């Protein structure tokens, strides 16, 4: 509830100096592509703003988003953001369970009606609501209930934002995204499979400080999803030079050449992986030698295969083309047959002439 310790106290308790906190705020500010002058506002908001209630609903998900956000090798201050808010309901992180957990949720909803932030990860099955239930309540039902009193919704992870892995062909559960169900509340999509930790916290920090960030057509914060991997990839010079890896252990792979021909979806994927990277800026898939999967884009599982380059057709065209060729031969031969018949008819109808038959006589 709202009487948890304030952020400055928590920081001191964790041995993080004010300087360290301000550095974090500075990097968060620049990450959101805000001017440095905004930094004090961010710091003030995190320290002093009333801690809003946050309800985190987990539906058909793998918990990867929570893991990404909370897993750390050493204490990081990313998880401190959870202490700038009042995280009133979260399956993995909360202490309570059973009826008490659900009671905590409904209490928080009533006490903060219209003002709490709803965070969702995981997709919602509508094929049969029974596919995924929490305490006997279907995901669909719980989402609608909880969204009714929310100020805004953050759909974390590709599953909540677009349907994700459960949505992939043949979508046995009829999984859909939050946006497919809730139409009357502002929704911020933070896709990724999982999203980069600092992106998630950056979005929450922006929301706490300034409200909803500027969103693109897919409701993603432009600060984190404005540019493609391709435009910021450190291997771009190799793409431009025409040097491509064609296997995972060929010369190109070992030299670190462009992974376009290995199926990289960088050109069509918007995310900050190429600049912000993962594990505190250690690396990202392309740097490790694997083509980008495009996991921040809708239907990335069904976009023609991870190892099929963007320029290569994704359908089963070979069979169709061979059939077409066979039909072409038959139709062409038939056409030629008709043509030859036309000719023989003409030959049969040939009127043999001599020089005196070459004029029109009436």
């Amino acid at each position: 509830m709202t009487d948890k310790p304030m952020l400055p106290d928590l920081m001191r308790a964790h041995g993080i100096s004010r300087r360290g906190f301000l550095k974090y705020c500075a990097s968060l500010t620049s990450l959101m592509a805000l001017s440095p002058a905004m930094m004090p506002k961010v710091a003030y908001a995190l320290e002093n703003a009333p801690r809003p209630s946050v309800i985190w609903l987990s539906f058909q998900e793998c918990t990867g988003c929570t893991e990404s956000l909370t897993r750390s090798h050493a204490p990081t201050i990313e998880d401190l953001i959870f202490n700038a808010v009042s995280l009133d309901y979260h399956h993995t992180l909360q202490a309570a369970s059973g009826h008490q957990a659900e009671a905590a949720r409904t209490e928080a909803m009533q006490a903060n009606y219209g003002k709490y932030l709803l965070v969702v990860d995981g997709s919602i099955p509508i094929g049969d609501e029974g596919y995924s239930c929490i305490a006997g309540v279907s995901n669909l039902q719980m989402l609608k209930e909880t969204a009714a009193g929310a100020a805004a919704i953050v759909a974390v992870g590709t599953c909540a934002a677009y349907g994700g892995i459960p949505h992939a062909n043949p979508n046995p559960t009829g999984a859909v995204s939050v946006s497919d169900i809730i139409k009357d509340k502002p929704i911020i999509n933070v896709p990724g499979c999982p999203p980069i930790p600092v992106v998630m916290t950056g979005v929450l920090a922006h929301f706490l400080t300034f409200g909803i960030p500027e969103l693109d057509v897919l409701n993603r914060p432009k600060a984190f999803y404005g540019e493609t991997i391709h435009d910021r990839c450190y291997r771009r010079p190799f793409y431009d030079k025409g040097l491509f890896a064609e296997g995972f252990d060929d010369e190109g792979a070992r030299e670190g050449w462009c992974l376009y021909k290995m199926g990289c979806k960088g050109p069509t994927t918007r995310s900050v992986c190429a600049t912000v990277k993962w594990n505190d800026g250690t690396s990202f898939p392309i740097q490790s030698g694997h083509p980008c999967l495009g996991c921040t884009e809708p239907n990335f599982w069904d976009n023609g295969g991870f190892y099929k380059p963007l320029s290569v057709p994704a359908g089963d065209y070979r069979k169709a083309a061979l059939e077409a060729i066979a039909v072409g031969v038959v139709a062409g031969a038939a056409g030629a047959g008709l043509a030859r018949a036309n000719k023989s008819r003409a030959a049969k109808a040939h009127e043999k002439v001599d020089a005196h038959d070459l004029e029109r006589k009436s």
Partner: protein
Amino acid sequence: MNDPYFDLLMWARGPGFTIALVVLAGGIILRLTEILFLGRKTDLAPAKGNAVVAGLKTIFTRSVPREGLVKFSPVTYIGGYVFHIAFFIAFLLFGPHIALIKSVIGLSWPDAGRVIIESAAVIALVAMLALLYSRITDPVRRSISGFQDYLVWVLTVLPLITGYIAVNKLIGDGTLMMALHILSAEMLMIAFPFTKLMHAVTFITSRYYNGAIQGRKGAES
């Protein structure tokens, strides 16, 4: 929730390509079969030269204009050569295109750098503009050109333009431009068997027949 641009791209890469390839492959084979199966009468006059050798040779030698002809139609000859060569460079030497070709027919070859590809695309476009100008202003070309000639011109420049824009992210959404580029190439594929684009295949048979007819008589071709 869906990204409409990516959905368009996936359609172009999926059903779009399949349809285009079916029409292209089936159509070319149909027309080629139709031509060849029409046949020709055996020539009963005794041959003076080797028709087959002359026919095969002409497939290549006809690419070189006879002496003194270029100066009468410089735009057509030079524009034609420049367009074809530049177009093939832009199409055949670009990495992503080579990946496509490898997927379809299993062949691949080294890639050229992007600057060569882009220069070739621009040069091809300039040549196309010159050829269009000639087609519109020259009395011979204007009189023999019909709807089909202009349609093919448009369909040929669209992939050049959309490709250049997509790779350079000049205007619009990158994913959308890539989808439009692939769709424009597919339109070219679909138009292929119904238009003069067939010359890309039938120039072989035509040059062969010409060379064979002449070569049989011991005449040059």
